[in-house]
């Protein structure tokens, strides 16, 4: 049977397929401040999404709302393994809000984007977290799953061709591994030895489709062999384990070792989007993951074991709440876009299209230039 994530794959009590955490793991070198930072990014992801749910219920979110509840560790832990000072770049998927925040996306940008505001990063052109910023190291996704794999193959090909010491990371879900673009992209990148890390987030479902209806492969990580690249599987709900496997792959890519495929085992606790009632989920499954395998709860326990006081984390929570409140106020005050901005920026030149004639103000009745003799044709 294919690999629906189970508590065995991702769980505090479960068997780990990654190496046990020891002093030689990259996460052992994280400073105390960095370890708290990891917590903060996960908390910010969750709290920001909770704020978005409130705004959605107030009908202030114009389109659909996509949650990453229960997957915060895989987004944050992996993005944290990139080196922003070296210009590493990632392409997030719809459940990688945490990765974008780590790269520098701000709560107010996310809120404005969801609220379709004129000063949102895409000026109201795109939805939800579909936006990017090359300066900060994230590139906007499109809805067509798998398509970002070839694009990131090209981004990282340019790093290789220019001899730059940069690495790219692309996220796909379990569903996207069924697309042609995923296959073509990872194969292309593997052949070219592009410095690319491909993360497959296996959260068990693509919309309502469980993994066993997506693939007959027993484990998605086994696909790596078909592309001649190393494959690693890790507990996606353990932020440090995610950081460790990603960091190894990033450094391998930076050293010229090419592509690594990482399968992160996690679980999607909300529906495909907020409207989805998850009627297709077996009874009790979501609750079990929430109670026994929440990535934030697990990491808090870990931090306590490492001697970090609850008060420190509570202070982080309070700071994040203030940050989100301020961002919400700003986003709510943001204007909607000017309608005619819709006609700008399709091409470099012309920078703006002329309005269609029936949208030209006051130009409904036009004088027509007429050829001499028009209307007098006599055959």
């Amino acid at each position, binding site marked *: 049977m294919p690999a629906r994530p189970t508590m065995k794959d991702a769980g505090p009590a479960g068997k780990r397929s990654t190496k046990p955490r020891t002093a030689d793991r990259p996460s052992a070198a994280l400073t105390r401040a960095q370890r708290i930072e990891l917590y903060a990014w996960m908390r910010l992801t969750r709290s920001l999404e909770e704020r978005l749910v409130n705004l959605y219920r107030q009908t202030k979110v114009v389109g659909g709302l996509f949650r990453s509840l229960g997957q915060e560790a895989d987004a944050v832990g992996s993005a944290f393994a990139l080196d922003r000072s070296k210009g590493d770049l990632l392409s997030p998927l719809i459940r990688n809000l945490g990765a974008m925040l780590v790269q520098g996306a701000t709560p107010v940008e996310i809120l404005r984007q969801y609220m379709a505001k004129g000063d949102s990063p895409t000026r109201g052109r*795109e939805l939800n977290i579909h936006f990017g910023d090359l300066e900060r190291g994230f590139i906007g996704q499109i809805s067509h799953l798998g398509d970002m794999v070839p694009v990131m*193959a090209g981004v990282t090909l340019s790093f290789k061709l220019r001899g730059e010491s940069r690495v790219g990371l692309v996220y796909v879900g379990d569903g996207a591994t069924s697309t042609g*673009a995923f296959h073509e*992209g990872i194969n292309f990148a593997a052949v070219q030895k592009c410095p690319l890390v491909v993360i497959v987030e296996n959260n068990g479902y693509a919309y309502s489709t469980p993994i066993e209806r997506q693939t007959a492969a027993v484990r998605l990580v086994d696909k790596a062999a078909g592309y001649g690249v190393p494959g690693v599987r890790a507990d996606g709900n353990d932020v440090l384990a995610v950081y460790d496997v990603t960091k190894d792959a990033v450094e391998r890519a930076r050293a010229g070792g090419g592509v690594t495929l990482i399968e992160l085992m996690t679980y999607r606790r909300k529906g495909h989007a907020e409207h989805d009632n998850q009627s297709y989920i077996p009874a009790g499954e979501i609750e079990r993951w929430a109670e026994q395998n929440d990535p934030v709860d697990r990491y808090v326990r870990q931090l306590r074991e490492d001697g970090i006081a609850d008060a420190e984390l509570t202070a982080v929570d309070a700071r994040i709440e203030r940050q989100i409140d301020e961002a919400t106020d700003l986003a709510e005050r943001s204007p909607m876009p000017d309608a005619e901005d819709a006609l700008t920026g399709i091409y*470099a*030149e012309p920078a703006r299209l002329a309005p269609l004639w029936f949208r030209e103000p006051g130009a409904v009745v036009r004088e027509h230039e007429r*050829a001499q003799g028009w209307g007098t044709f006599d055959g």
Partner: protein
Amino acid sequence: MAEVTYLEAIRQALVEEMDRDESVFCLGQDIGAYGGAFKATDGLLDRFGSNRVIDTPISEAAIVGAAAGAAHMGMRPVCEMQFIDFISCAYDMLTNYVATSRYRAFLPCPIVVRGPSGGYVRGGPFHSQNPEAAFLHTPGLKIVYPATASDAKGLLKAAIRDDDPVLYFEHKYLYRRVKEELPDGDHVVPIGRARIAREGRDVSIITYAATVWKALDAAEQLEKEDGLSVEVLDLRSLLPMDDDALVATVKKTHRALIVHEDTRTGGVAGEITARLNERAFEWLDAPVMRVTAADVPLPYSPPLEDYVLPQTADIVKAARVLAGY
């Protein structure tokens, strides 16, 4: 100065642009050591090395997607589709990712996708296609389709320098059949401007690519046999289309015959007709007429292919009907 074929003009444009700008590189199937199925990239690997002439797997979506990613990072990739028929394998990448990139994400995507197109070569349904109509409908793309060696060179250089994605269709029937002396120096033909291939007063034939030559043959015959003065307008660029040139020729002749090699329904001729209707209705003395391929997949056998594709005799016949309307 020696005459240069349409194919050699393409090669020259690639070489000159790669010499001029080190961010330009080529990628595609069998373009390196083999020099491409039609040898358009012959010698480029030796000259520029494997980092700038990249042989790829059979993966059109990855070729175009990777070109887009590299373009975002400041490169100027030129993708070769081994036959343009395979561009449909990259349709999603081109229409959803590449074409929307500037608009939705403010990310320039200056790529060129080029490849041998068109029929009259007994290539059958999958080595003869003219896919321009499938992309004409996509805002964000540009489309050029040269008919002469001079335009083949000048438009490819313009396409590579353009800050937006350009589909560059090259007609394989013309590769070695048309040649001319090329202008000296840095010969760039601006995208979006049509060319009057022959001046005339009585009927306008609006066309592009290989049928420009058939229209010119038809015009010659019509002048000799009927005393008709036929203007031939070579569009060269389909997106953006040179509306001013369309209107200008109709204002002159008052009769428009649109000729293209692609199939009829939903073809470029329909779009041209609509534009003439909107902008030059009062100047027309007759309905706009079309000579196109029949609406069938292009068959292989010579009697079948010749029957389906527009021929000079068809253009002559249609122009006579139009002139006598």
